[in-house]
């Protein structure tokens, strides 16, 4: 019995969230996109995504704060966080905390490969 993994894309730029969502779909993820940090935090109380694609510069609540909350929540212990940011310094500083830290621009091939690697082992792949 296979289950489609869930990817939550938290990105305030709609163009990028579209690209990331499309790419992850290609990588056989169910996707959900949120542009607001506060909304994202609230949403994370109800869902358990397998992968979170996280921008750092977000309205209301920063990506860094969201990462901290995820890491502090036992429920989300299996959730893999992939930081995708334009801020090289921030990417660098959070790379140990996150599972992956990517500096924009991110190639869809790279994202696809990495997301595939982060998929939980019990999920099916295409």
């Amino acid at each position, binding site marked *: 019995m296979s289950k489609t993994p869930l990817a939550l894309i938290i990105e305030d*730029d709609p*163009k*990028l969230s579209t*690209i*990331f969502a*499309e*790419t992850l779909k*290609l990588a056989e993820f169910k996707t959900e996109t949120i542009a607001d940090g506060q909304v994202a935090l609230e949403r994370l109380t109800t869902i358990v995504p397998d992968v979170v694609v996280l921008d750092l510069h977000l309205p209301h609540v920063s990506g860094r704060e969201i990462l901290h909350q995820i890491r502090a929540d036992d429920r989300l212990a299996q959730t893999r966080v992939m930081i995708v940011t*334009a*801020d*090289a*310094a921030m990417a660098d500083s959070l790379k140990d905390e996150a599972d992956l830290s990517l*500096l*924009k*621009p*991110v*190639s*869809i*091939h790279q994202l696809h490969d990495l997301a595939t690697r982060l998929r939980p082992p019990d999920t099916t792949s295409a």
Partner: protein
Amino acid sequence: MLLLHSYFFKEHPITVRSSLIVGATLVYLLIFSLFYHNVGDGLTALAIFPALISGWLLGGRLGLVAGFIIGLLNIGLYFFVGGAGSADILGRSLPSLIVGTIGGGLSGWLRDQFYQLKRQADTVTQERDIVRAEIVQRRQTEIELRHQEEILQQLSDHLPLMIAFYDSTGKVLFLSRELERTLGWSMAELNEIDLMAECYPDPTYRQKVIEFMIAANEEWRDFETRTKDERLIDTTWFNVRLSDGSNIGIGQDITHRKQAEEILRESEEKFRTLAQTMTAGILIHQGQQFIYANPAVTMMVGYSQSELLGMNFWDIVHPDHQALVRERCTARLQGGTPPAKYEIKFLKKSGDIRWVHVTTGLIKYKGQLAVLATVFDITDRKAAEMQLQTIATENLRLARAVDAATDGISISDPKQPDNPLIYVNPAFCQMTGYSFDEMIGQNCRFLQGEDTDPDTIAQVRQAVEERREIQTTILNYRRDGQPFWNEMRIAPIFSEEGELVYFVGIQSDVTHRRQAEAKLRRSEEKWRSLVENSPDFIFIINPDLTVQFLNHKVPGLSMAEIIGIDITHHVPPDYQETARNHLERAFQTGEADNFEIVAPGPNGTMVWYQTRLGPIKHQGQVTALIVVSTDITEQKRGEETLAYARDQAMEASRLKSELLAKVSHELRTPLNAILGFAELLDFGLYGPLTDNQKNAVTQVMESTNYLTKLVNELLDQARLDAGHIKLNLTTFQTDLLLEEVQTKMSVLAEAKGLQLTTKIAETMPDVLHSDRQNIQKILFNLIGNAIKFTEQGEIQVNVYCADAKQWTIEVRDTGAGIPEHALSKIFEPFQQVDGSLTRKHSGSGLGLSIVKQLTELMGGCITVESKFGQGSIFTVLLPMHPIMETENV
């Protein structure tokens, strides 16, 4: 017989007598016992013997009793030995008793009588002997008395003593011849005159004499006694009372002695007066101390006479001469003959010194030797002598000084015609080159020559004529014709009477000095010109900070407003305290110093002055300061401009870094959108693409990649510029790193038909401890560059380890190469070799610059070898960091 006599006619003790009785009785008993039967009755007669003996021995009544007992005993014997009967008892016993009793009693009586007579005869004999002895003794006494009398007579006759013997009533019994001779009265005349009245006519006086005689208190007393011929003589008397109340008066005529004493007294008086009044000191010294010192001595030494008498001769002698005096004094007293006269110093009680002349001799005082010293105070003489000596020494010294003086000294005699030289010292001879003999007798003018200033000559002549001093410098000529400048001073010398006796000239050759002065003047002119023309203000400041000198005028101030005024008055108020502190400190420490002040300049501008302080020292003391104030306004402005420019540049640099970071950040998001959509298009997410469309999408992706690379490089450069890139050392596997690089870069190489090979030498450690990300960047850059500039051939990456301290990355290509002139600039930012190449191989021009900076950041270096058209070799040398054992790979 004699023995018998001695036994029987001497009084024996009772023991002896008892023994005789017992002995006689025993003899009788023996005879009786032996001879009774033969003799018989005849024995009765025999009993008479023991009875007689006992009676004699016992005497008187005791003899009678002893005879009776012996009779009884005889009777007993008859009974006992003969056994006679009662018939015989009467016939035999009675005769025994009668014979015994009568014999004993008679014998005893006779004995008593005998002894009585004998005692009487002894008494008479003793008395006769006593009388005889008394007669002998009296005769001897008489002889002795006569002898003594003779002695006394002789003594009284021949002793030079007047002796009078008189009884308790005062009657004269005897007068000695000396008395008769002295007083003129004889013993025979005493019956006619009253000797006392004759000798002492004054009753009161006489009474005193009589009282003295009666007192007889055995002491000598002097009286004035009149002789028979009515002379008054001095006598002295001594009275002794004898046991019978008579008196002996003993006297002496002491008239001569008195006279002698008087003479002596007068003599002594004279001597004392002399000694007391004379100015010469007289001392008598005996044993260890003075016994006399006259007032002159007390004056000389300042001690009183009583003080002196407790002192020693050498106590008043100066320590310099104490030993000498002690030695001579002792020697003289011991019979030696040291010099009798000498000059020594006395040390006064006050500590002053007096020179004295001492004449010593020996005298006898109280039977012992004493030293008599006559002392003359010669202090004044000594002082005069010393003064003379000092003058003599001074003269000698002066003479020597004149001889030794380096100045020429001459003496001329104006009393002689033409005022000739009479003395020149060696220095003057040396100065002129003439000898002493050549100069003596000449007038000084012979030293003058053709160039000697006539005015100066006239001045000198006039001064000599007017007999006054003159000081001048004149050109003279040496013996060898050489001219010299003579600085001379000629002074007239007058006698006490005011007569001109000499002219004394003192000359110095000042040729060198004049030359030096000229040189100094020129030098001074040079410096003065330098100082006066200096644009700086040069002050000389006194210790009270007043201005002593200023090199040129200060605009707007007269010199009078500056010279003599405290320099700080001209310093703007804000700087006055600073200036004063610096100036005062320089005066105190003597150290050079400098400070800056701002003063208002013309037209309301501000002028910066740098002020330097240089102390002028004299004998270690700062006597003045040289203060040099330089206008450094231009320099200050330059500095300000420079500082401003630097700040601006730094700010610009900071802004550039910030801008780059910002730009990089802001570009990434749209770049991601472009790249993302292009890739999605290329992927066919939005439907299949035509070839043209596909080509266009590829162009979009390439451009985006280029832009991304550009942004990355700009960001790296910005971070390097801002110093934000820090070393991040981790431990990693060498082969994995190279594999990753190979994988990524091969795609690009293969796309151009190039071969990329990586080789890791065996010498390389498996694990490295370094900044993995930086090394990766360096490799990406170098390999990327190589791919970019290589059209065909291969790219080789070699990694090897030359030694334990460093390792090497080598990237070789077979590309275009770099022309030699560009090699030195290749690592500079924004440099690319060729414009045409740049256009073809677009790039930021930052890559190699970043590689170099990263290499250097890691403590390494990068070099390049290249041949244009043949390819390049980039070599990166990196330090080998030791691997921490605890670190996990």
